């Protein structure tokens, strides 16, 4: 079902006219209200009125996660704090989170886009949505929640964790839609099986899965084990949260980006030159309607391509293909963003080990398991096993405190970590996704 027929099926020409008008207004607004953007525009030698067509967007400088971090916590906000009604945050490269804000109107826009996304994924009024995205600073839980209410569906705010209880709720409440990360969906299937509940006896029709990369193979597995149709949803808190792009259940072939609210671009991650449709590069977003936290040419670091082919569902918004990787070394572990540099900062503060480390990610029983291999250092090596075990535990605790992720710390011998061309291989991702 299409939630917002007028905008979602708008002819390209009319859509692009709206985009240009909204882009010009957004650029004028950030230039006058966010010192960071004013300075960036000045350094690039442009003023907002130089942007006369959509293709002029390429003149505008990029925004990176580092820029957001440098303006921690609220300096990227384009409205005074008394207009901000909601704050979310996601983890940043050095442990400092990226903070995003929403005005009441932003929450309304987000709810509307999320309602569109749920509808594209098969939900409608009368559906019961089992929302197992985490509620909190993470945008997943509340984003889906508001969209579900806007759509007129019944939402169960079950959040993450307590999986056995979730199985009971799924059995007793009869939800028809499930929203969670794809890995949690598979975990739910296993726990259900353990307690003797078959998804064949449940009432699910559709599942809307996102917040981490997954594959067609994983989709087949989820659809088989959960007995439903699985669609992919995309979003990131810096751009808005979930509901930036969604697959339609009719095609399940690429995610429609809500282009009346966001302009997507694909750029070469090295030269930063825009690439034509169909070519693979880094996804860049400019927000068109956000008030509190507009983003201009924000580099998502996600690698994908754009597909302008018309879609049988009737939506005219172009589609992004599945995200196939990152242009930086960020890992998503159980929905939490983890940068190797964060682990490094924990190790730098630990005298007893070398800052030589390797992150190994595996997927066991459908849950991500992070192992941190650390080289013991010569100077502080103790011959007492107990002392070394205490050291492992201390690093584990510090990682958990800074990143909010449980890791298994494993001490290894010096030089045990592969160094290719003198540079350590920091991340080994064994997950088959």
């Amino acid at each position, binding site marked *: 079902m299409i939630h917002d027929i007028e905008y979602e099926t708008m002819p390209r020409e009319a859509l692009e006219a709206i985009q240009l008008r909204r882009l010009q207004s957004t650029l004028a607004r950030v230039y006058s209200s966010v010192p960071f953007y004013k300075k960036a525009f000045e350094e690039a030698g442009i003023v907002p009125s130089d942007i006369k067509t959509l293709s002029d967007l390429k003149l505008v400088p990029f925004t990176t996660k580092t820029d957001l971090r440098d303006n921690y916590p609220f300096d990227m906000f384009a409205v005074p704090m008394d207009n901000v009604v909601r704050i979310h945050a996601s983890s940043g490269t050095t442990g400092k989170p990226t903070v995003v804000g929403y005005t009441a109107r932003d929450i309304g826009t987000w709810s509307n886009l999320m309602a569109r996304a749920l509808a594209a994924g098969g939900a409608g009024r009368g559906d019961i949505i089992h929302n197992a995205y985490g509620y909190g600073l993470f945008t997943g839980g509340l984003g889906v929640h508001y969209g579900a209410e806007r759509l007129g569906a019944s939402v169960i705010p079950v959040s993450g964790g307590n999986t056995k209880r979730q199985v009971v709720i799924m059995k007793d409440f009869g939800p028809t839609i499930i929203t969670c990360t794809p890995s949690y969906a598979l975990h739910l299937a296993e726990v259900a099986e353990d307690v003797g509940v078959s998804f064949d006896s449940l009432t699910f029709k559709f599942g809307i899965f996102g917040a981490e990369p997954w594959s067609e193979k994983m989709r087949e597995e989820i659809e088989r084990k959960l007995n439903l149709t699985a669609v992919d949803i995309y979003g990131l808190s810096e751009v808005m949260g979930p509901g930036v792009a969604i697959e339609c259940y009719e095609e399940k072939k690429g995610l429609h980006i809500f282009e009346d609210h966001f302009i997507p671009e694909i750029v070469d991650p090295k030269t930063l030159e825009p690439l034509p449709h169909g070519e693979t590069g880094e996804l860049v977003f400019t927000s068109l309607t956000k008030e509190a936290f507009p983003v201009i040419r924000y580099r998502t670091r996600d690698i994908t391509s754009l597909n302008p082919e018309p879609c049988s569902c009737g939506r005219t918004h172009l589609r992004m293909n599945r995200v196939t990787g990152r242009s930086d070394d960020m890992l998503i572990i159980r929905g939490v963003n983890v940068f190797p540099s964060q682990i490094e900062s924990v190790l730098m503060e630990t005298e007893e080990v070398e800052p030589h480390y390797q992150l190994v990610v595996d997927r066991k029983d459908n849950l991500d398991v992070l192992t941190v291999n650390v080289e013991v250092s010569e100077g502080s090596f103790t011959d*007492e096993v107990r002392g070394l075990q205490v050291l492992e535990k201390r690093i584990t605790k510090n990682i958990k405190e800074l990143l909010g992720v449980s890791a298994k710390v494993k001490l290894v011998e010096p030089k045990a970590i592969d160094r290719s061309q003198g540079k350590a291989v920091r991340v080994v991702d064994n997950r088959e996704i």
Partner: protein
Amino acid sequence: MQVEQISVFLENKSGRLSEVTAILTESEVNIRALALADTSDFGVLRLLVDDTEKARQVLKNNGFTVGKTNVVAVEVPDKPGGLHRILTLFYKADINVEYMYAFVRSSGDNAVMIFRIEKEDEAIDLLHKNGVNVIDGERLYTI
């Protein structure tokens, strides 16, 4: 009166221990006693050798993490209750034993035990006062 022991950090993977013995063999270092402590991930190999400095250097040159610790070598009467008597002395003097292991050869009629203990000097005094012989490095390496 203390004896120098070297300890080597080892990952739990096959062939690692034999690499240590190969390096020592090549350098003609003789192992006099050893003990291996291990966890599921890693182990610590403790060695008494006839040339501590040389062993340390060659192992370090081959990329091993090597530590040096002082331990106490004690003559223990080779009869029932021999070890018990010494441990009782430590216990009463509130001296904690971190770990211990047996030396390969005996010294006359006595066995030799290697102790890693707290308050080493105090412990050595205590042993002497109670008529227990402590063996120094030079003698130990030539037993």
